């Protein structure tokens, strides 16, 4: 223990013998670590937003459909249980949130124009915290019950259709016998979404109203369950599997939107690759610094060996020196990252490239996300790889032959 203290003291003093070199190296490590964490926070923020938006587009972390529905999202592919049975099955299961819906393609027509949309028949009370629409922000009002006779559409769609709150529109879709099912509705509300495409695509109506219009009785096309944490929905998945029998397909969101699902995986890989790339760029400087530090001190090291210091202590001393350098650099880098990310957490406005971000599936405001596990990952990777990179110069220093080392001339 005492030896460690002496070695640390020696290492610490050695570090500041050439304060310029140490300062430059600290600068490099700090910038590197800052970049690791900053970039990671930005990408994590972007991915989280993308996934949040993506999940809100197809709300429900675990979804139940008729086996053919995903390939053929038609009203003929209904879940082979009545909605009452579904409520009796899912209600007591203790999910944090769940709901059943009708979701079919439809055409919406105003007196001016028509568009293809995705028509959702929902239970507005149950879905309040599930869908991406903020009920209180809706112009007019949101749906109030399952048999609400109005529809709520996006602002953007209302613009294209030349319609507004209070006006009538017609919705057309098909019923299970492939007869046209249509019905006039009054537009009761207009919603905003942070992804513009949602405002063009989704039309909300009451579930009961749609069941009547589409002549499907007490049946629905999907049941969805929200989990506590979208990153891990295995518990909910298993619970849903246990509730339903054959004849339906149960899918996690990562399987429903493979782009998003892959994104989550690729991003975790990206963080590691990015941290390692930065470290490699840093490692050249780190090894260089250590090699030089040893080189300058050959005679001194020889003297210490001759005076009886063990080679292991020389090795330890240089490793401690390297670790001290890394720890200080990490400290500054982490602090810098924290200082730059905190003020940005309110969101970075990217609206100049909004539509491009939308193409990635992300919203135009980026909220950097400082995740503890990413910071830990960066720090641990730097320390471990830094230790490994320091081994060679340190080992070399401890292997000097005292006599040769002492007599070495520059």
């Amino acid at each position, binding site marked *: 223990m005492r030896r460690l203290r002496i070695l640390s003291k020696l290492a610490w003093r050695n570090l500041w013998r*050439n304060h*310029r*070199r140490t300062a*430059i*190296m600290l*600068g*490099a490590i700090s*910038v*590197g670590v800052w*970049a690791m964490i900053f*970039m990671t926070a930005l*990408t994590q923020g972007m991915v989280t937003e993308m996934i949040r938006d993506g999940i809100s587009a197809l709300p429900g972390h675990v979804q139940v459909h008729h086996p053919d529905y995903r390939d*053929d*999202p*038609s009203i*003929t592919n209904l879940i082979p249980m009545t909605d009452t049975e579904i409520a009796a099955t899912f209600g007591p299961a203790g999910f944090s949130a769940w709901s059943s819906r009708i979701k079919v*393609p439809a*055409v919406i027509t105003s*007196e*001016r*124009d*028509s*568009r*293809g*949309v995705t028509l959702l028949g929902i239970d507005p009370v149950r879905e309040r915290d599930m869908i991406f629409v903020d009920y209180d922000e809706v112009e007019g009002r949101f749906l109030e019950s399952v048999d609400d006779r109005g529809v709520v559409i996006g602002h953007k769609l209302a*613009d*294209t259709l*030349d319609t507004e709150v209070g006006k009538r529109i017609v919705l*057309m879709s*098909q019923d299970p016998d*492939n007869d*046209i099912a249509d019905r006039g509705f009054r537009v009761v509300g207009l919603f905003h979404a942070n992804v513009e495409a949602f405002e063009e695509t989704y039309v909300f109506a009451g579930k009961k109203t749609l069941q009547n219009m589409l002549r499907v009785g007490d049946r629905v096309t999907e049941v969805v369950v929200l989990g506590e944490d979208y990153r891990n929905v295995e518990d909910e998945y298993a619970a849903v599997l246990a509730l339903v029998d054959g004849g339906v397909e149960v899918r996690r969101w990562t399987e429903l939107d493979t*782009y998003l*699902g*892959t*994104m989550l*995986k*690729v991003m975790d890989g990206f963080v590691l690759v990015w941290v390692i*790339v*930065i470290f*490699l*760029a*840093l490692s*050249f*400087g780190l090894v*260089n*610094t250590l*090699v*030089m530090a040893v080189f300058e001190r050959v005679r001194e090291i020889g003297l210490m060996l001759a005076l009886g210091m063990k080679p292991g202590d020389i090795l330890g001393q240089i490793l401690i020196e390297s670790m001290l350098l890394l720890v200080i650099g990490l400290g500054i880098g982490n602090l810098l990252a924290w200082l730059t990310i905190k003020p940005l957490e309110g969101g970075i406005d*990217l609206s*100049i*490239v*909004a*539509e*491009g*971000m*939308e*193409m*990635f*599936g992300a919203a135009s405001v980026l909220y950097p996300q400082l995740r503890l596990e990413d910071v830990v990952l960066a720090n641990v990777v730097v320390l471990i790889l830094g230790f490994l990179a320091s081994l060679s110069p340190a080992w070399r220093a401890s292997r000097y032959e005292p006599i040769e080392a002492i007599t070495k001339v520059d």
Partner: protein
Amino acid sequence: MNLVLRLAWRNLWRQPRRTWLTTGAMVFSNVLLIFMISLQFGMYRLMIDNSLQAFTGHMQVQAPGYIDDQKIRQTVPNVRQLAAALRQELGSETIAARASTFVLASSEERTYGIAVYGIEPQFEPQVSSIPGLITAGRFLDADDAAEIVIGSVLARNLRVSVGDELTLLGSGKDGSFAAAVVTVAGIFESGVPDIDRSVAELPLGLFQDVFYMEGSGHQVVVNAPRLSEADTLQSEVEALLPPGQDLVVQDWDALQPGLKQAIQADMSSAFFMYGILVILVAFSVLNTQLMSVLERTREFGIVMALGLTPGRLGRLVLLETAMMGLMGVALGALLGGALTWWLGVHGFSYPGMEEMATKFNLPARMYPRVTLTSLLAGPAVVMLFSLLAALYPALRLHRLHPVEAMRAA
């Protein structure tokens, strides 16, 4: 000159390990930059080409406001004649007229809302890749036949194949009810999921009849021989538009605004990463050169006492850096170029890339393409920043006092 070069070269190899480590940092960044830049710009080109060739074209003549609202009433009058006039004036075949609207399409078993386009069967193949991507049946050939071609996903969803009938319901230009019964002539597969799921094409003549278009349409698609010539062509098209009519030419950036911005967003994050790499290399160079100058304080004191000016000494230090930089560029370009070229020939893929790629109309295997720019741009910047980093140690020499320097420990 020769002497200075030789001096610089020898100075470099006084500490071979240090020189190699610093050069190594440069080589590492250069290889990475060459690979990334080749990949990136190859990808952007593909994204643009694939997205525009399928359907959008390089530019379109439209009614003002159509681009935002796409209302059926926002028309281009006498669209067929306009396209013909442009073809003749510009001596180009890659120009075609279209009309479009949304309808409810019903087959025996299924009903879906889709976008239908009225196209000129004779000219459409010159502006869109869809006619060449027919996987069953054939493309449209007669201008007023009651026929339709649809995307493969749509065909599967509607459960129809070639020869089946579809009923189209929608509204005409005047807001009246419009309906038609058409036969599926062909099914195409573009590989772009959005297009395959929701696009159908009718002959323009039939479209104009069914939707009471009175000779009008919604867009004239114009393709330039190359993307780089699109700008010049656009001003030519603008000059040829009939006076007195309210028409605008929308370029591809306006037609697919997501595309350029997606590229910009990707580019800015990529450049941030490149910037960090370059800065780290610069630190490495700064460290090395500062050390090598400090080590030589006594030596520099002597040569200055002998009459060498600090300026010349500074140039020597810069020359050393430049030599190191050149080695970095040469080795980096060699390794990076070879690696990228090899991957460009064989292609590569990583897990998850397929799902990501289809989202941006890209193939599942990537083939980076080495160009002179991608080969030299990154290394040139690395070199530049290395020299900038070496400026501080070089300029520091001006503060050196010969007598004190000679006595330095």
